[in-house]
């Protein structure tokens, strides 16, 4: 595995794109969850637009940080893209499952905001 240091000219690009990876990742997760929670499918394309922004950020980071110059780091880039994509889906399924269990137990969350009817 090769660690090729970032060029001085790319410092800002690395910092900025790394921050954008997390922020666009959070935006994707937020819009994804909100769209399903409130049953507003029109928001889902925006969620995937945020994920596209995340992909661009990951690519920019990978270029600036010389990650494509090594197989291991290229593999990490792929894993990042996959992880950020599937993790919100996984957590959503867990949320629905845990709240479904609550309904099975004969309890309901205490107000009308109960989204246990939501299915993925």
């Amino acid at each position, binding site marked *: *595995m090769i*660690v*090729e*240091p*970032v060029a*001085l000219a790319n*410092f800002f690009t*690395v*910092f900025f794109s*790394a*921050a954008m*990876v*997390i*922020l666009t*990742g*959070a935006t994707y*997760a*937020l819009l*994804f*969850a*909100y769209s399903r*929670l*409130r049953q507003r499918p029109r928001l889902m394309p925006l969620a995937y637009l945020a994920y596209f922004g995340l992909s661009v950020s990951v690519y920019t980071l990978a270029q600036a*940080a*010389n*990650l494509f110059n090594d197989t*291991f*780091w290229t593999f*990490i880039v792929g*894993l*990042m893209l996959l*992880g*950020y994509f599937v*993790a*919100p889906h*996984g*957590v*959503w399924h*867990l*949320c629905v499952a*845990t*709240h479904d*269990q*609550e309904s099975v*137990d004969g*309890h309901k*969350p*205490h*107000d009308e*905001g*109960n*989204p246990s009817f939501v299915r993925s």
Partner: protein
Amino acid sequence: MSALGVFSTANLNGGQKLGLKYLIVSLALFGAQILFGLLAGLQFLMPDFLFGVVDFSVNRTLHVNALVVWLLYGFIGGVYFMLEDEAKHPVVGLGLGNLIFWVLTAAVVVVVLVYLLVQVGPGEMSTIWFINEGREYIEAPRWADIGIVVSMLVFFFNVVATFSKGRYTGIAGVLVLDLMALAGLYLAGMTYTPNISMDQFWWWWVIHLWVEATWEVLVGCIMAYMLIETMGVRRKIVETWLYIEVALMFGSGILGLGHHYFWIGTPEYWLTIGGFFSALEPVPLVAMVVHALFDSGVHRMKNSNHPALGWTISQAAGNFFGAGVFGFMHTLPQINLYTHGTQWSASHGHLAFFGAYSTAVIGFFYLAAQKSRGNVWMSGNLPGNGWKWKWGMALLWIGMIGMTMALLIAGYEQSQIERAIEGSTWMGYFAAQGHPWFTQAMNWRQISGYGFLLGYVLLVWDLLTIGKGETRPAEVINSEAH
């Protein structure tokens, strides 16, 4: 129980009385951390200030040690506070727990006095035992280290014995396992070796694994209890998510240790391990945005303690930005080569510690304040619209964000000039320290620090007065919560 709105320990059970003592010392040490931080910050601007009286090295030591100890006291206080409620049984060995509180607090005072009274001198085996061990964050001498481990073992005994005799919940199970690690991992920081790489290797076990494993789990347990108490979230859901989050945290957090091993003389494979986990560590944090939104949709933020909930929400946001965004910005080895140990680290450290831990402990302060006054009303319509807690929180956050951004600018400048251009030379260090971007950033850091201090003063004032004279009992959110 005394009247509503009157502060009295008669409102509390035995564990809560002991917990309250820890929380009070925790709040005082939080103030000490701010005080010594401000003094150290001033010495960046005026290097002669208090030189030979309280040197920068001592101020810095006290600043970071106070951080560790006030958070630890806050966590211990939080656990004792919830212990009897959770176990439905009086704390077993409460007398011993009380004795250890006084012994530990006396030891903290002695350690601080020794830091202040013996600031310079030779470094020998005897000084490791009695003066200063020399490892940042855990400078406490060996005798105090042993005392901390013994205290953690007594704390562990109190918790395990109480749960054994009472109700054993999911929170209890996670907590008990975590406390074993809390005491055990501290031992790793007590070995002496003249090899600096080996020393750093074990030192990180305490610093990283305490913070990103045992403390995270402790905060998870405390927050789980707070969510049940203040929002009436059902235990089954809270405990299920506690398990999930602990699993995610262990999956990504433990070997995230690797990014601390990048440049300390450890084998090269740590670059692979550290790089892998650094890249993927934020994924669970980002995914948890889904969970936060889902839960807020379910519960609509109905709660019995507005300040505690406010601080809980800010914990989620602070953890996300401090640990997630500010961590990932400089954690890949390709860039960390330049940022490691600069003010970048300080910027990330300030926001991450405050966001992930301080906020949770402050939230618990408010829960303790509520119970200490007979479980009074702390929902909406607080006197003065709750301006003190709101402004206290706002000033603390504005101050923290100001310090973080100022340190970020200073770190950026250091990583470019000292590291990349000057090649980490001694001259490069001074070139970076004297650069206008650095000195201006240090000025802004100091100004933000004063704002933070003001927020702390408001926080203390509010904690001393909130609920005073209140005649309404706490809003009942969910009677089935337990």
